[in-house]
């Protein structure tokens, strides 16, 4: 009995040699390397925050302006004497583009997500989804000159007969193209969460005599709602941060207006304007870049955090 056990042990030491001790070192090395990669993103974020923060403090000191006056001042004249740095017009312009493009992108994106997830036959879906995602790959500056050369002339043809004046650079064209640009964000992410709703829920609803529309809007959509909202917020934060399309479409006139047919300026546009101008190093105008950048960073970060919280609620509902 014990003899046969020894024999088995012998055989196993031949076929299953002890694993070398250095495997543990390799394992630790791998973990360290992976950690270092993860650290790069964290350090980058921290670095950006530190640079933006330090330069913003320098800005508030040299310009002699309080953060509140900066955020809520309604006059932005960096070249005036003395210069005025109230960025409310920029915040207003940014908000206008965010809201306007959402009005375009959220309904179209959500409805196409519902179509792709619930209605489209498999073949249609396999063609349409990649095409929609292709929209996201178009360089944003292309959207910008499309706004300038196609959207604005079209708006003119439509609105000027009604007696409305459409400026060459106008907020509406920016809203339309940024809206089109962020449709794929909404539709692609929403489609993912809609189609991850368990099939059992759809079957339950169909089994009770629900139509496809009822299943889509009264079971699938509510079940996926937090994921859909997260995709909305992500798209909005993309619109807030969008630069080149807005520079080309909306122009550079910082003003607080409700008229979308006139030129406005967003935070990102202001940064482009200052960078491409000749503000010399250390001047308040130069430093204002960083304060605007920090505000923009804070805005998109808040939106991303909200989106993360919303998504977490969705995961809790469906493990």
């Amino acid at each position, binding site marked *: 009995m014990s003899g046969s056990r020894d024999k088995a042990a012998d055989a196993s030491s031949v076929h299953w040699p002890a694993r070398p001790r250095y495997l543990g070192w390799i394992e630790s090395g791998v973990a360290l390397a992976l950690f270092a990669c993860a650290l790069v993103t964290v350090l980058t974020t921290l670095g950006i925050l530190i640079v933006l923060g330090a330069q913003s403090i320098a800005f508030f000191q040299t310009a002699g302006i309080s953060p509140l006056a900066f955020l809520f001042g309604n006059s932005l004249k960096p070249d005036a004497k003395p210069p005025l740095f109230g960025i409310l017009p920029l915040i207003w312009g940014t908000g206008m583009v965010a809201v306007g493009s959402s009005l375009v992108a959220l309904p179209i994106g959500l409805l196409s997500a519902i179509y792709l997830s619930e209605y489209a*036959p*498999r073949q249609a879906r396999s063609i349409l989804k990649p095409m929609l995602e292709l929209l996201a790959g178009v360089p944003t500056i292309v959207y910008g000159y499309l706004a300038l050369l196609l959207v604005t002339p079209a708006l003119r043809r439509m609105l000027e007969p009604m007696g409305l004046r459409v400026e060459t650079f106008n907020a509406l064209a920016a809203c339309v193209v940024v809206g089109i640009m962020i449709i794929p964000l909404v539709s692609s992410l929403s489609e993912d969460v809609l189609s991850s709703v*368990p099939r*059992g*829920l*759809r*079957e*339950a*609803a*169909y*089994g*009770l*005599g*629900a*139509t496809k529309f*009822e299943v889509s809007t*009264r*079971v699938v959509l*509510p*079940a996926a709602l937090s994921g859909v909202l997260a995709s909305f917020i992500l798209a909005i934060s993309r619109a807030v941060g969008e630069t080149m399309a807005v520079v080309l479409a909306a122009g550079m006139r910082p003003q607080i207006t409700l008229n979308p047919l006139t030129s406005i300026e967003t935070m990102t546009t202001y940064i482009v304007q200052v960078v491409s101008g000749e503000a010399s190093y250390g001047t308040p105008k130069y430093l204002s870049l960083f304060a605007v950048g920090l505000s923009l960073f804070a805005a998109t970060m808040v939106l991303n955090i909200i989106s993360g919280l919303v998504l977490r609620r969705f995961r809790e*509902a*469906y493990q």
Partner: protein
Amino acid sequence: MSTPVDPGQRHPAAQPPELDPVVLSALGLSVWYGQTQALRDITIAIPRNKITALIGPSGCGKSTLLRCFNRMNDLIQGARMGGEIRFDGDVISGDIDAVVLRRRIGMVFQKPNPFPKNIYNNVAWGARINGYRGDMDELVERSLRRAALWDEVKNKLHRPGLDLSGGQQQRLCIARTLAVEPEVILMDEPCSALDPISTARVEDLMDDLKNDYTIVIVTHNMQQARRVSDLTACLMLDDAGQDGHRTGILAEFSPTDILFTNPKDPRTEAYITGRIG
């Protein structure tokens, strides 16, 4: 190896075994998923106010057959049906409005699938979309009582349905089905995700429900088929064709006590004694 059958022979066992009023029937029913045939030439008549069990080895098409009765297979792209299905005498296998049909033929699924809504709205949902005009509170209470769940949930109707235990969730799904007042309830392995105590409760419930409803249940559990059903249909896979694919056929359909004690078909006997499947 199963015994070869004369291909020209219609299944003699596939006649209505009793002279009960037939509520659902299939005549020469075949189902394909794309190019693959899942069921061939099923003829079966399901009597009213009885529990009919569908048993058979995995992949023999029990669930496919069940899902033909409420046209649930329509949701699967590429699924096709040949032959005829009748419900209360009307042909339901052709171009009909499955939405209307599914209210009258309810379904309970393998995995409890309550909506992510509260208990009350889980029960009320189906009634609401079907435009129920009566007293909703009364309907919800009646359905929950009928599903033997009322006493456990009456004080927490506004708690999420997903907070209930698995067995309670399944009875909630039964209550939800009862709330649209169907005539037939199709059950697709309703107890396979439940523990033995919850299973016993659902089985008791089925026995109680058959006074008012016709129940067709797919089960992998032969003891369960024996315990709850009045009639049992045993499906089998035929011998592999040239493409190596095997298709589901109906081997035998008899009163449950006869099928389990004195099966006529040798394949049924092999299956219920555990030699195949």
